[in-house]
């Protein structure tokens, strides 16, 4: 693409058909990667008998009814509500506490703030299973097992290292002048933070909010330990219990359940693809 000028002129007629083939192949490869996703969507409206007879075919007849049954068995509305509540509360907690701490760490550079920063960053390396047993015992003692609060506190704490890393590096890249101006105008630290710093952090906040939401929506471990009863189950756990506890689940139930599990995340991805790609590539170069 970049090699234009003299050599480009000479090469163009020879290279063109090859480029076309290569482009078509890229589209085909992308579609092949997406094949299991299409398969899931198509199979979700096929009857078990139809699917068993011809595993690679199209729905005949289209069995929309599959969804109705599964929707009820999963208690889907409730599960979505639970997941959204846990995800939003965790995000709010991470964003508020993380941005405040990140600001102090980035602007008040002393030995103890550096040490605190390193403590948070060390949290990034801890595998979740080092923490699960003590957390389970702790939540048991606090009588918080099977409550939203248990999951929210755990998720917020687990995601703080990533949030603080992100906020601090973001703050280091923006000048302090606006904050100084606010101080001259007589704003106290709390006012400066809320009216000046927090709005400036919006791009970082958006990325953190999206990534924390994605990771919570994907997580199996925390719900498996802290949200097991019907009333507080998340979508992931609901699908896991629905599919996993049956010896052999009918395909007509499996695929709609799987679509319902994946749909909210795919919708989020489609809406926020720009921010998500920006977040994935943060720190490497331009996206």
């Amino acid at each position, binding site marked *: 693409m970049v090699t234009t000028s003299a050599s480009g002129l000479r090469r163009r007629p020879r290279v063109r058909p090859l480029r076309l083939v290569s482009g078509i192949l890229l589209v085909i490869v992308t579609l092949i990667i997406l094949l299991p996703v299409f398969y899931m969507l198509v199979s979700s409206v096929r009857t078990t008998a139809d699917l068993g007879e011809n595993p690679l075919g199209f729905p005949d007849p289209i069995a929309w009814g599959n969804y109705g049954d599964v929707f009820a068995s999963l208690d889907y509305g409730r599960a979505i509500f639970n997941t959204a509540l846990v995800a939003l509360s965790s995000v709010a907690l991470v964003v508020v*506490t993380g941005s405040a701490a990140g600001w102090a*760490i980035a602007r008040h550079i002393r030995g103890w703030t550096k040490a605190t920063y390193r403590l948070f960053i060390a949290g990034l390396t801890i595998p979740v299973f*080092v923490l699960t047993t003590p957390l389970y015992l702790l939540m048991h003692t606090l009588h918080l097992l099977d409550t939203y609060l248990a999951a929210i506190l755990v998720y*917020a704490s687990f995601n703080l290292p990533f949030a603080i890393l992100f906020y601090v590096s973001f703050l280091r890249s923006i000048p302090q002048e606006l904050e100084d101006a606010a101080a001259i105008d007589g704003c106290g630290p709390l006012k400066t933070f809320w009216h000046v710093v927090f709005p400036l952090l919006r791009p970082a906040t958006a990325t953190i909010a999206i990534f924390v939401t994605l990771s919570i929506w994907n997580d199996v471990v925390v719900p498996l330990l802290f949200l097991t009863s019907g009333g507080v189950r998340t979508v992931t756990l609901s699908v896991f219990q629905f599919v996993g506890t049956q010896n052999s689940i009918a395909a007509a139930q499996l695929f709609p359940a799987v679509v319902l599990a*994946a749909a909210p995340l795919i919708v989020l991805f489609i809406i926020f693809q720009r921010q998500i790609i920006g977040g994935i590539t943060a720190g490497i170069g331009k996206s």
Partner: protein
Amino acid sequence: MRLTRPTALLFIAPALILFILFTVYPAVSGLWLSFTDARGALAGDFIGIENYVKAFTDPKAAAALQNTIVFTVISVVLQNALALALARWMYSHTRLQGFARVGTLVPAMMATVAVAYIWSYIYSPITGPLNTLLRAVGLDGAAKIWLGDPTTALAAIAVVNVWMFTGYAATIYLSGFLSIPSTIFEAAAIDGARGWKLFRSVEWPLLAPAFTVNLTLSTIGALRVFDLILLMTKGGPGFSTESISYVIFNESFGKLNYGYGSSLAVILLILTVIVSFILTTVLRRREVEW
């Protein structure tokens, strides 16, 4: 705005308290548990390094370590090779880039439960689409009980992991390609570098930061693999797909061996720290040298 010490402390306190209560305290407590014989509700007594001695002589733990390493090697090598090729391909097609990037990212943006169950069905022996496809093209011999055969199950799960995250890694490699200044390509074109030579001597060294990030992310993720295994095989058939994380989960919450489970978790932590330290040191040095 000059933050005074008390104000800074006030701003840090909420996050720090949350982090100490639900991460630092459990980490320290987990370390302590690993030196006790705690089981379920029983607090347990200090037994020194007995759990660690057991871990290093337990054939199940050894099998889990081996499975985890095999899984990690397959995942990391395949994922990075495919992602790099894909990213190079996307890079050369500016107009298809957006479509290919979003399309290949979709698997990483689906809930893990969904991915695990779709692939369990794809791999299923009788009505599974994979075997149906193989039989349809005359490769009846290649059809297998993918997840029910100890020789294929682990690799089959690793392939799912690769499917899920190749687009993610490709997105990172692509941004590495996009950050190479066009003047460098112009200079390389004048020098006559093209194709493999261009890749080897210009693009590959400049992709070092993306390579560091991808290798570290994929290795740490694979060393901790748990969800896919729980959802697809529950460690079976036999113990052939039990990873370290899966054994920890099973010991701690299946058999309630909190002490022993915690010691395995600490070993996993140490393994992760050593591997990421080596990766970061070796790979960062490569970045600087260039």
